[in-house]
């Protein structure tokens, strides 16, 4: 895994993840996954939660890890699929569907880019016993592509297209990911953001605001633009 020198804790997590294993995850831990990961984003969420289409049979038993991503996948001549690389998409846009989705699917691990707002962890993930893992970088498409061993199944490919379909990937040593939120709702992004914010005032010292202002812009640099 090549990173033991950093002193960060590493964890190889088997999917579907058990409650005990999930309880061991701490913000800042490096995680690699084995088993089945499924992708779902706005297309799948709408289909199930708004249009009332049933979930694929046995989803919960197969996987409890939801990856927010669209693969670069192409069909092969023998009917299987070739996956080149995968890069996560920003998760903050999906929080409106998450409470019901976690409820319906029993998903315990949400994987994506950039994490979700601090309140979303406390109000949505924690009550469902779920944690958040973030991809690294975020451009590690080639490394993640390597960890995908096979396409186990794909659902709603025709209806939703390659980007929005529900892909089930059989993965091995799939990662790296970093634990953002734990079962208590602690968030790595939030704590690091707080620490960065502490220095901002000193950084801007002596730099006056520009002569021409802009409508609607915030002057509070502790805020996020997302």
């Amino acid at each position, binding site marked *: 895994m090549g990173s033991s020198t950093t*002193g960060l804790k590493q964890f190889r997590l088997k999917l579907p993840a058990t409650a005990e294993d999930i309880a061991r995850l701490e913000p800042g831990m490096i995680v690699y996954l084995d088993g089945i990961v499924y992708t779902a984003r706005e297309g799948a969420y709408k289909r199930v939660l708004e249009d009332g289409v049933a979930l694929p049979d046995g989803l919960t038993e197969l996987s409890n890890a939801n990856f927010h991503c669209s693969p*670069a996948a192409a069909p092969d001549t023998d009917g299987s699929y070739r996956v080149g*690389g995968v890069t996560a998409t920003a998760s903050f846009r999906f929080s409106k569907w998450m409470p019901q989705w976690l409820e319906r699917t029993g998903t315990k691990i949400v994987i994506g880019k950039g994490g979700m707002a601090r309140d979303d962890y406390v109000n949505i993930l924690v009550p469902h016993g779920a944690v958040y893992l973030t991809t690294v*970088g*975020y*451009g590690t*498409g080639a490394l993640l592509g*390597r960890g995908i061993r096979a396409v186990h199944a794909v659902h709603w490919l025709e209806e939703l297209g390659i980007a929005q379909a529900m892909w089930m990937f059989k993965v091995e040593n799939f990662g790296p990911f970093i634990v953002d939120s734990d079962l208590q709702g602690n968030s790595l*992004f939030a704590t690091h953001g707080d620490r960065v914010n502490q220095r901002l005032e000193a950084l801007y010292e002596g*730099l006056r605001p520009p002569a021409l202002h802009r409508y609607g812009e915030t002057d509070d640099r502790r805020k996020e633009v997302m």
Partner: protein
Amino acid sequence: MIDDDRIEEAAYQIMCKAAIDIPDDYLQGIKGMIDLETGDLSAFVLKSMVDNWEAATEDRRPMCADTGLPRYYVKVGDKARLTEGFVALERALRAATARATHEVPLRPNRVHPLWRTEHNNNVGLNAPEVEWSFEPDVDWIDITTVHKGGLFGSDYRMLFPGDGINGIKRFFLDTLIAFGKRGLACQPAIVGVGVGGSKDTCMQLGKQAACLRVVGDPNPDPKIAELEAELKELGNNIGMGPMGFVGSSMVVDCHIEAGFTHTGGMPVSVHTFCLSSRRATARIHADGSIEYRTDPRWFTPYMRRETIGWEAPQPASSSFA
């Protein structure tokens, strides 16, 4: 005479190289940052990126699954002659884009902005962009492709002379902090700053500064070079690293390009060229032979001229291109 099949071949090869192989100047820049990085998570992210680039080159797969927006910069030698002409050249660039999309494969990223329809080949209305420049006294054609990623990380602002250099610094910090949080800009980046021109020129200069100048290439104007170094240090002093984690790796290098502007204004733009700093260049010689490299050498002395005409520079700088 340069045939258009040589152009298509060169364009196809640089499309593949840009998508897969990280340019060495950027790689060395990141490796240098790992040594200085004190944040343990930030250092871990940078090491993972190095692993990722090695995996991409070994497996011949794209370094990032997000293709960005592939585009071209063409520099035509004043003495270069084409068998078919410039319309055929543009067609060859579009054909190469479509072919590389299918064969690498690259994710088709380009869609119509309103109807979200696509041709699945990264070609469409006004896409890929082709920008042109010229070079005196030579008979080759340089074609550079850049696959710049990032929905985040660029901004423009009309500042005024009274805002001064401090105004530029403040706007530079604003842009890096706003888009650096949670790593939306996929930093550390080569940061390009455009100063002056009209609004579109300002954006164009800043973007070209980020995407077409390599790490370690200062502006030839010593006072601008000094400001570049100052801005780089300022960015790395924010206290933020990759993914917005506590750290010191934000700016791999800072490049400024300036253009004469309205006497009352000082427009500024900031652009970040992300962790997938994808660029590759091909030089097509008059005999049809092709050489590949990762330094676009876009900003030649001729590009930065201030005079009406053009006189050949002193020998020291004539070797530039």
